């Protein structure tokens, strides 16, 4: 009973997270479209870039013949169109990858609920989760933004994501062992 309640909470959380990702995707798309219609609306929106984070292995900031403060250069309305498109695509793709990740995790939870924990599908699901998080880590590792009077580029390594990738692949191996033991048990007459 407790086990089932916990699983039900996990499944509900997965569903809610998926909904949040869909809403975020729609929200980003609306902002992306609105930004192209009325840029001045976002003139006060600054883009804060935390270059002091130790996860950044290289960062470059540049200004073009101006004495303006970086805070005034890095605003949403001054973002170049190309950079805006790249940023939107990155966000959209990132959200899609995370959505698929949560979907796979939900599948695993549902299979545990259906007492099919050590099935081959769960091994494949965990491998897929690992690959998706790896793709997400690679996608978010490079940031490059060009503004009208300057720009920023940096390479960022997300150790949390890499740890999760490792964890997912280890889980896949554990489930593979479980699957082999279950198969042997099933085929013992």
């Amino acid at each position: 009973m407790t086990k089932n309640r916990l699983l039900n909470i996990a499944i509900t959380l997965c569903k809610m997270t998926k909904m949040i990702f869909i809403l975020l995707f729609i929200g980003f798309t609306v902002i992306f479209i609105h930004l192209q219609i009325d840029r001045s609306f976002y003139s006060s929106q600054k883009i804060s870039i935390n270059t002091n984070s130790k996860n950044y292995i290289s960062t470059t900031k540049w200004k073009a013949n101006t004495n303006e403060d970086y805070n005034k250069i890095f605003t949403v309305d001054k973002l170049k169109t190309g950079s805006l498109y790249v940023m939107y695509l990155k966000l959209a793709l990132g959200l899609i990858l995370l959505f698929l990740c949560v979907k796979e995790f939900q599948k695993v939870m549902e299979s545990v609920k259906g007492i099919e924990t050590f099935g081959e599908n769960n091994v494949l699901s965990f491998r897929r989760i690992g690959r998706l998080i790896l793709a997400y880590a690679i996608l978010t590792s490079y940031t490059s933004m060009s503004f009208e009077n300057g720009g920023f580029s940096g390479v960022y390594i997300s150790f949390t994501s890499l740890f999760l990738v490792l964890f997912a692949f280890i889980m896949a191996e554990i489930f593979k062992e479980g699957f082999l033991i279950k198969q042997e048990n099933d085929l013992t007459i």
Partner: protein
Amino acid sequence: MSIIVNLDVMLEKRSMKSNELADIVGITTANLSILKTGKAKAIRFSTLEAICKALDCQPADILEFVED
């Protein structure tokens, strides 16, 4: 696999059907089919004992080792 299950031969000798044997031994016909087709990975002594009792034979009559 190098262990051959000759259950079919013994069933024919004793003029017994698979369903009957499954009933006597107390296993499902699906499991008996797994055993007959050689897909089984292991056989319990209790199952082997029940099959031998039902078919009035020795384990060697059912199982055979063949070099790969």
